[in-house]
């Protein structure tokens, strides 16, 4: 367990954008195009930069946080789309990050800050 923890601890903290991507994939596998659409809907704007996005995907894949997956059987075969899904490691990392953020929020000082506002 500790060894496992060390394995994903090195990814933390995640960049917000990376966490966004992992959370989107937590719903199930998606191809790049759908990911972008959903991400943009979440944030309400077209701030997704194509190169940044695919660079991030590539890095996540290379790090083993996400995996390439096969498309649905009923999809049009001509559309050669690359699907992605969250890997076990990716899920653990995302969970750890969320926990970390949660711990931050419950921190007394953080609460004080919230109250002050």
């Amino acid at each position: 367990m500790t060894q496992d923890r060390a394995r994903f601890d090195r990814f933390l903290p995640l960049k917000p954008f990376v966490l966004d991507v992992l959370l989107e994939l937590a719903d199930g596998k998606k191809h790049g195009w759908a990911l972008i659409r959903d991400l943009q809907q979440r944030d309400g704007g077209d701030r997704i930069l194509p190169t940044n996005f695919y660079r991030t995907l590539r890095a996540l894949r290379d790090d083993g946080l996400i995996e390439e997956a096969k498309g649905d059987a009923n999809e049009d075969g001509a559309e050669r789309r690359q699907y992605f899904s969250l890997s076990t490691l990716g899920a653990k990392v995302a969970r750890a990050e969320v926990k970390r953020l949660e711990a931050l929020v419950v921190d007394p000082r953080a609460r004080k800050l919230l109250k002050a506002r």
Partner: protein
Amino acid sequence: MNTSRSLYRLLLRLCPADLRSQYGDEMEMLFLQSLSGARGPGKARVWTRAVSDVVRHGIGARRDSWRKFRKTSAYVEYRTGGWWMDTLRYDLRHAIRAMGRQPVTSLIVVLTLALAIGANTAVFSAVHSVLIRPLPYPEPASLVMLWEKREAEGVMKNSVSPADYLDWARTATSFTGMAAMTEVTADLTGEGDPEKVSVAGVSAPYFEVFGTRPLHGRTFEPGDYTIGNRGVILGHAFWRQRFGGDPGVVNRSVMLNGGPIKVVGVLPANAAFPNTDAQLFVPLVIQANPDPPSRTSHQFSVYARLKPDVTLAQARAEMDRIGKDLEAQYPQLSRGHGAHVTSLPEEITGPVERTLVVLMAAVAFILLIACINVTNLLLAKAAGRRREMAVRAAIGAARARLMRQLLVECAVMALAGGVAGLMLAVWSVRVLAAQLPAVARPDQAVIFSLPVLAFTLVACLITCLLAGALPAWHLVREDAAEPLKEGGRSPVSLKRTLRFGLIVVEVALTSMLLVGAGLTLRSFQAVLAQPAGIETNNRLTFRVSLPGARYRDGAAAARFFNDLESRLRAEPMIQSAGGTMLPPLTGFDGRRGVVIENREVGPDDGPTRAHPRVITSNYLQAIGSRVREGRGFNPADTETSPTVAIVNETMAARYWPGVSPIGKRVRFTDQEIWREVVGVIGDVKHWGLDEPVNPELYVPATQFPVWALTWVLFTNGDPLTLVPIAQRHLREIDANLPLFQVRTMEEVAAQSVERRRWMMTLLAVFAVLALVMAAAGIYGVMAHLVSMRTPEIGVRLALGARPASVMRQILGEGAMQAGIGLVIGLGGSLALMRGMRTILFGIEPTDPITLASVGVSLMIVALLAVAIPAVRAMRVDPIAALRQ
């Protein structure tokens, strides 16, 4: 929209290839989507964001890949260079094996490249020696030459008179030193055989100006510059040859012109001086000879070194001022005379600079032509290697690796060609060097100097890239699976237009080279067609010079020459014999002021001057010159008879326009004696066939004392058989006099055009080389084409096409390529050859005869090269072709 798409795609090149190939399309779609959603300035914002995104994250992604790579074990090998060297060694081994598999092709490629690279190396070694490498003196840029100038007459570079030199050296402040040099020949007697040696008389700071230090002994000191106390300095080669390199020769005496003279020093091997090949150096003592120093006898070359803070322009300004002062001081003798300063490096390199540039361009063309041929050859061979490449690509070789392997193969051949080329250059550099200035002459050692070796290496690499890149790219670019397919015989691996384009370029380059060579050839013919004013056949020339120590007065010298002439004329083998101060076609001499009796000199007239020509009574017959009017000299013209002169046609026309000069009187400005003109002779070219003729005043040797004459003997047979006869007579009169500069008149004439002949020969060799390569190139492409089209031709023949029409088609295609290339080449020549104008003679760079003959001959060669494959196409057996 399409432009945006292309631009964005271009931008995406910043990303690593794997990212681009996997997600490039989606990235592009995303971008286009946001672009289509934007209007007006919004579009600009989208673009700005896209650029910053791709630049930042594209490069970031490359960094990601790099970081990942660094964690692998391959990185360790990479960092130590092991990976690169291992595969390079493999590529090299493979390349050598590949060469061995196709020995004929490889040999042709290596030989072609050896010729081209060798020619380039040899010419570059000359360019490097003459134009790039500094002269072998400390700070050569501050060395200058000084000349007398007469701007009104268009003469900027006249030799300098002793008096002018002394005045300049005394008053000028721009120079650390100014030295005069004049070259004479002298008899060396004493130990060993008597020998004629060339001696440079040099004034005080000569060796200091050039920064030359002696190898043994010393250079001259002020005490050496007095008559009777002179020492001599030996040139290195002469010291080795005559004294066996014995350092003990210093302080010994040698006999020069019959008098003892002490050796004070020996020069080092690398000492060389402009405008002289002197073997000995003696102090030039001016004050006493003649007394006072002459202002009209121009005989000195003057060299000086600028002070460190003085520019050439400042030195010119000062010398102009000094010239004006002298003009005011000596209005009679120096009217219109000034002083001109030129840079010595330019003086030395100037005359050959244009020639070398032309030669360099010619060999660069050759290299290009060779590259094209090799490209074509490799393209043809590439067809046979498609399978090999496909297999290697299929089992995982990256394109870059395959490409590198092919380029390494080409580089190995280029380097082999380069090494062979170096050998060729070593062998040929001597030929090339013959006509270059001695001070900067390239030798075999230059070939192995760093800049020349670097040049050769760069030439090899450029060759490798030029000749190898196209075929390699062509092979690698192909879809890996294609040649592996069943019956993969589709031979259309070569774009025909590409190879046709190469041939067109090759023909164009060749035609330009041919035009250059043709123009020099026609110039050379034009020069040879110039009348020299003399006959050259069956004539022997040699020079006899009398030592002033034993022949003190002119009368003694005149008696000697008279005696010699009458003895030679009495010889039955000799038809006529005569002597002259300056033989035709040999060089340069100064003019002297003359006074024409009763001639009104207008304010616009330049000074009245003529070249003095001192000849013996029989000389004009001996050279076959024609007397146009009046008479030649004869033995009755003696020192006591009335003084007479003969003028050339140019002088007659210039100073007695419209009237006969016979009976008119003329004198040299610095002499009191009037001479009556008794004859007019045809112009004789004294400076060279391509040089104009100036007024010349001939006077008999009996009436104008001289101590050295060049003799011309005319015989019926082989002129060289006269040498022992002449030697015998000379010995009978004076046993201590050698005969020197023994040459036939034909040799003299040939030497006068030597540089032009040299240039013409080199360009002709290059042009022939180019022509052969072009013919081989055309033949290769057409033969390959025919062999690839054999099935098609077979079908056509089987369907009833006539063999003649098949042949006509092939011929037509070849003629088309050659024709297009020719038109481009001749057009290019019109533009390029203007640069050759200064080295042409008698013809224009656009000479239609040259252009036409180049066109015709190149076309004939091209058609001959095409004819063989065309005939082969005609003879294709339809049955065999279809079965193939």
